[in-house]
């Protein structure tokens, strides 16, 4: 009996659970919890354990699919999966959500997090949700990968469509799995999808589909206020001008202004420098932090007990998801 394993990774909402569910013959254990503050209610559910699915490829071979929880606070699971459960995986599939504000940033992040793992196996990038946002395009991705000197195939898929996912998996393990007749598998998967098309109300599949429906994007200040420990937020445009705020105290506005001008001055004096964040802390004092992307900025006032990494992760998350600030 042969076992082929693939590991799915990617940002929250990139479709890991969806992809594995669409192919798996066994019911995927539902470890999804309703989203509270963290993914800023961008999504109704998020995986807090891991995903596992299985598909029989023929009498002698099975496909095992593992999915990591997307949120960074479950990073310990990533290590566990890389070193244990999926240590012998044949391929790593990186799902990239095209509706995020900075999908390239996601690629860079996962490349660095999983680098040692990637170099030892087949690696494929699959871009999801491009029906909702068609930029960046396939050519943009290819150019970007070329710039980085990484030769990984990039395909665009809809993680809800089992045939897309099968194609993707087959392309990732085809070299290893030469004992598999993929046309047989395709037929089986197509039939399975056909049967599942209208899940029974009340069935596990039905309930999960209901729970994972997308919610619309919201402004970054509203998103920030959903985060536990964040007391106030200001949103800035690419020039550093404040375009929205929940903060009343003018002293804070002045402070954010100083942080903005300081960052801008540093960049003006040396064009090779990019100031990504600037913040003030004190042990008995709420923290004031400014986070910057090339096209938007986010200022947060947060409780001192919120750690530097927590604030940063939340800010990154919010800027990835927030209603995009268009440069005018």
């Amino acid at each position, binding site marked *: 009996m042969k076992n082929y394993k693939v590991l799915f990774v990617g940002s929250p909402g990139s479709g890991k659970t969806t992809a594995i569910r669409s192919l798996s013959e066994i019911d995927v254990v539902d470890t999804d919890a309703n989203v509270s503050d963290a993914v800023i209610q961008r999504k109704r559910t998020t995986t807090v354990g891991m995903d596992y699915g299985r598909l029989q490829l023929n009498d002698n071979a099975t496909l095992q699919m593992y999915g990591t929880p997307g949120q960074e606070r479950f990073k310990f699971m990533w290590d566990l999966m890389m070193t244990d459960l999926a240590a012998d995986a044949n391929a790593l599939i990186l799902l990239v959500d095209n509706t995020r504000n900075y999908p390239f940033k996601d690629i860079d992040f996962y490349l660095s997090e999983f680098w040692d793992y990637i170099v030892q196996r087949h690696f494929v990038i699959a871009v999801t949700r491009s029906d909702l946002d068609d930029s960046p395009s396939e050519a943009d991705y290819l150019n970007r990968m070329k710039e980085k000197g990484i030769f990984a195939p990039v395909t665009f898929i809809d993680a809800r469509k089992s045939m897309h996912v099968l194609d993707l998996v087959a392309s990732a393990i085809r070299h290893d799995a030469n004992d598999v007749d993929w046309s047989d598998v395709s037929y089986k998967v197509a039939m399975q999808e056909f049967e599942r098309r209208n899940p029974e109300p009340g069935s596990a599949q039905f309930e999960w589909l209901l729970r994972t429906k997308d919610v619309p994007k919201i402004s970054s200040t509203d998103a920030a206020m959903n985060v536990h420990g964040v007391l106030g937020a200001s949103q800035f445009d690419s020039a550093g001008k404040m375009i929205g705020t929940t903060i009343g105290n003018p002293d804070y506005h002045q402070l954010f202004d100083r942080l903005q001008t*300081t960052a801008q001055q*540093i960049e003006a004096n040396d064009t090779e420098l990019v*100031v990504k964040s600037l*913040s003030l802390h*004190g042990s008995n004092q709420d923290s004031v932090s400014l986070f910057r992307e090339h096209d938007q900025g986010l200022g947060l006032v947060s409780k001192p007990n919120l750690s530097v990494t927590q604030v940063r992760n939340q800010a990154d998350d919010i800027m990835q998801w927030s209603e995009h600030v268009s440069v005018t």
Partner: protein
Amino acid sequence: MSQLLKKLERMSGAKMSAIVMSGRPVVSTFNAEQQRLLELSKTTCEQLLTDSEQLHIVTVEDEETASFDEVHMQVNSDYVFGLRLNQRALFISIADSRSDLLKTQKTLRSARRVLNKFVDSVIAQRKSS
């Protein structure tokens, strides 16, 4: 004296560090190529801490102890920690932005007392010579 800084770096995961008094580094593990980063960190932290003092935003009941004494900055892939020490000295420490910043911050904060003592001893030395 940079032994102390080296040890702190090992514990905190930082790459280099310095103690700055009256605008000048008194101990430093920054090498020649890294001087520009030290200069930039020093002026930015000094400026922002002084500016924020003038604003004196009080957010907790205890007005006396409420003040900013720490600046963080991420420039490119470097993460700068600037801590205000006593006698208006400044402690600068640089870590890789991908490293465990929480650990660095915790270690640096708990080293405050030792760093303050060091600053005191430098001042005492200067007075006696």
